[in-house]
């Protein structure tokens, strides 16, 4: 028994776990490759299109992207911090329910809320129609803010991205030591001064970490800005690739965008490091501030308004639209679409989870600096916008197809067409680059909750590493594996730019179809696929909430 278990271990992990390490190294190289392709493009000659870009629209791409990022950062900060503070520190009716309801807008992809509000607020939408009917105005008589604008995009993105800030800020506020707050009161500072000079600065690293996630998402967004006609880096990349077919220039624009991406990554990692120093080591929690009368009503009303605008109103609108045409739209084509999305998302999710499991297990066993670095590098993918990854995948795939065709023409006298380009394989590979980090983070936190002494006691009982993995780690990781799967599944389901660029010809997903229908102003028809995405998107939020509820820290 002992001998067999040793031998199957040595098949997978020879004494030094050499093969595991080599495998992990190869995976990491594969994951960074598209990013390296993009970065290396700045060393290639800049073509005519680039100079044309420089003379005309490049500055507006940069300015719009920056304004959008900072606008959304500000918006999410205001919404996220205020709601987090109310829910974490104050006591008012509905506080517990709101603490998870406030997460719901996360399920709403920005491009979906964007087109829903466009339908609601446009000149021909119900709001303006009613306004005209009530006041007897006609078109042009009155001022109404234009939603298809930079400001509109800022609002839409803020409404669905604030939960990132809310989530981190709430945990930070809730974990702030009662003693620290009391120390401030004790030294003569009132509640407001205490909030401004103690609570808020102490939550700052968490808030900045949340805001940097928001900025990553904003930079990566394509659906909203494209729909609103705002020129940013992502729409620029699409225009150059689709409109001009200039992949090299698209890569160079992507490389420029990477500068922003890396700045945000640095910001995020720095604030996460700071968060460690501010960690709560005290036992006594602050007493919740009892809000009474009108204050309680205002707090409750405020939080419900945020959720209503960010989730409830758009979802009602989507349901109304979807219901009005469900007979026409719930057909074979839709089933086909849903099936495509399901297959694509679950394949990508399974591969991501397996890859993440492999990397994190190798890291756990080998504990070498290399394997730790590999995991950190693999985690970077999430910060890279989907459009950039798509371009970074497309360039080597195109080069590979060209080479194969050259060889085949030389040897057999005919070309065999595209092999990688336009295949589901490279699409899934691009998802892997972008979303492996999501599953990796989940599995790593799951693994870290299994104490190393458990591995050691298994080893001292003569159990091989592979058997430890099978009999101890995997059963204990069951929930983490499922969570990782669902997180990636939903992210793939929602992902628009990567899918748009890399999908095989005539292959559609729910996200792509939603976007196409909305772009064609068929908002009502777009509701059914959109609603499907949102409803499935609720799954990971329930999971997040369950994990938070479990760690007694928060309540």
């Amino acid at each position, binding site marked *: 028994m002992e001998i067999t278990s040793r031998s199957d271990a040595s098949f997978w992990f020879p004494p030094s776990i050499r093969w595991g390490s080599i495998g992990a190294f190869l995976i990491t190289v594969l994951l960074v490759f598209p990013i390296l392709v993009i970065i290396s493009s700045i060393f290639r000659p800049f073509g005519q299109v680039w100079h044309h870009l420089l003379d005309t629209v490049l500055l507006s791409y940069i300015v719009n992207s920056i304004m959008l990022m900072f606008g959304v950062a500000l918006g999410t900060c205001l919404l996220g911090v205020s709601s987090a503070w109310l829910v974490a520190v104050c006591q008012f009716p509905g506080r517990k329910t709101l603490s998870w309801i406030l997460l719901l807008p996360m399920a709403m992809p920005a491009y979906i809320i964007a087109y829903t509000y466009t339908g609601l607020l446009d000149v021909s939408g119900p709001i303006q129609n009613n306004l005209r009917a009530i006041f007897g105005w006609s078109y042009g008589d009155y001022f109404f803010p234009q939603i298809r604008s930079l400001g509109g995009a800022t609002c839409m993105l803020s409404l669905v991205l604030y939960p990132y800030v809310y989530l981190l800020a709430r945990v930070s506020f809730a974990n702030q*030591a009662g*003693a*620290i707050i*009391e*120390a*401030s*009161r*004790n*030294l*003569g*500072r*009132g509640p407001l*001064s205490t909030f401004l*000079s*103690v609570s808020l*600065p*102490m939550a*700052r690293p968490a808030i900045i970490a949340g805001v940097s996630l928001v900025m990553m998402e904003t930079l990566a967004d394509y659906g909203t800005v494209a729909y609103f006609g705002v020129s940013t880096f992502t729409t620029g990349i699409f225009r150059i690739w689709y409109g001009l077919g200039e992949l090299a220039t698209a890569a160079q624009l992507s490389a420029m965008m990477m500068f922003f991406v890396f700045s945000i990554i640095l910001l995020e990692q720095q604030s996460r490091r700071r968060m460690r*120093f*501010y960690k709560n*080591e*005290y*036992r006594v929690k602050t*007493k919740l501030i009892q809000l009474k009368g009108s204050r309680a009503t205002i707090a409750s009303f405020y939080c419900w308004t945020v959720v209503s605008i960010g989730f409830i109103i758009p979802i009602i609108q989507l349901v109304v639209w979807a219901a009005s045409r469900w007979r026409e739209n719930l057909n074979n084509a839709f089933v086909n679409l849903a099936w495509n999305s399901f297959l694509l998302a679950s394949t990508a999710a399974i591969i991501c989870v397996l890859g993440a499991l492999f990397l994190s297990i190798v890291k756990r066993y080998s504990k070498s600096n290399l394997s730790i670095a590999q995991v950190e590098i693999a985690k970077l993918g999430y910060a890279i916008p989907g459009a950039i990854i798509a371009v970074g995948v497309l360039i080597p795939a195109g080069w590979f197809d060209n080479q194969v065709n050259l060889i085949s023409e030389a040897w057999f006298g005919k070309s065999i067409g595209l092999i990688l380009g336009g295949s589901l394989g490279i699409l899934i590979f691009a998802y892997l680059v972008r979303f492996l980090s999501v599953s990796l983070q989940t599995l790593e936190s799951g693994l870290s909750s299994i104490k190393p002494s458990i591995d050691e006691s298994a080893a001292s009982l003569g159990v091989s590493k592979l058997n430890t993995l099978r009999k101890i780690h995997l059963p204990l990781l069951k929930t983490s594996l499922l969570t990782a799967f669902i997180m990636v599944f939903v992210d793939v389901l929602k992902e628009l730019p990567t899918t748009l660029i890399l999908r095989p010809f005539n292959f559609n997903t729910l996200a792509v179809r939603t976007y196409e229908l909305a772009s064609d102003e068929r908002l009502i028809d777009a509701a059914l696929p959109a609603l499907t995405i949102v409803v499935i998107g609720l799954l990971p939020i329930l999971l997040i909430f369950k994990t938070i509820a479990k760690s007694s820290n928060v309540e």
Partner: protein
Amino acid sequence: MNNQLILDKVSVHHQKTMAVSGISFSLSLGEIVCILGPSGSGKSTILRAIAGFNDLSSGSIMIGDRTASTAHFTLPPEQRSVSMVFQDFALFPHLDVSRNISFGLQSQLPKKRSDRVEEMLELINLQDVSHKYPHELSVGQQQRVALGRAMAPNPRLLLLDEPFASLDTDNRNRLAREMRKLLKLHNITTLLVTHDQNEAFALSDQVVLINSGSIQEIGSPTELVQRPTTIFAADFLDLGDLIEINLDMGGNLDFGLGKIPTHLSTDHLGKRIKLLLRPGAIICDDNGSHMLKIVGKNLLASTQGYSLELPDGQTVHCSASLRKEKTVGEMLTVRFCLHEVSVF
């Protein structure tokens, strides 16, 4: 009367259960008083009520000449001029040492504020780390910062919550003595809370001994040790062996070893009493007249400690020189020296 703090029949409830009840004591200017008691006895509750973090259910608290708390009114903590040093220090992690100390001085002019910070840094001897952050300091340094921060605004009253609990035992007594010197030098009225009697005795002028939410005894450390009036005090302060014994009408104790004469007051005569035998009440002496069985022993630094069994089964302790060691089960010859016994 220059009382800085008066507690009058203070009671506090935590979720309908009584945490402390009927607490009354006062502090005069420059006095250092310690609330001593086991954990869960309600001592922190009293401190938090004085700081304004707990509401009273009855009684009142006066700070200086101002009513700070009654059953119907709680002055907000920031208006009490009471500074607290928290158990875990509660230093602001996002501020450096200087800014932690100046935190309570925001109503003062910048010049005056920085002078005061300098003064405090000098006082706690941390000038060279004034720009470090709390996580970069040792525990001892953190404690000094917490003390400096609390003293900076010149509070009417300083509260210390288990001030040495985070420090290792070697440093505690030394730091307690240093802190007493500092507090006395600046004539700071101080109330501290601890479960460690060594800390309490090293620091304070008066000790308020509490248990289960009510005061057992109040007195100076010497009074408490020499003349405890409650069994709780004798037991909690670990003053010696508590045994139950009969005192006959002639003032003799009956250990079952023959009568032992005492000079106890007459109102205990003929009763079964609880007797506190301090170390030294039983002396190992080869010329002694009593033999007791050794039921356990433990080596102390310079003496051998023996647990001895009385004929009725109660256990007492005695220490003897290391030279003639006995084993468990043997008999030890002792004599009784009952000059300083306490009776309850």
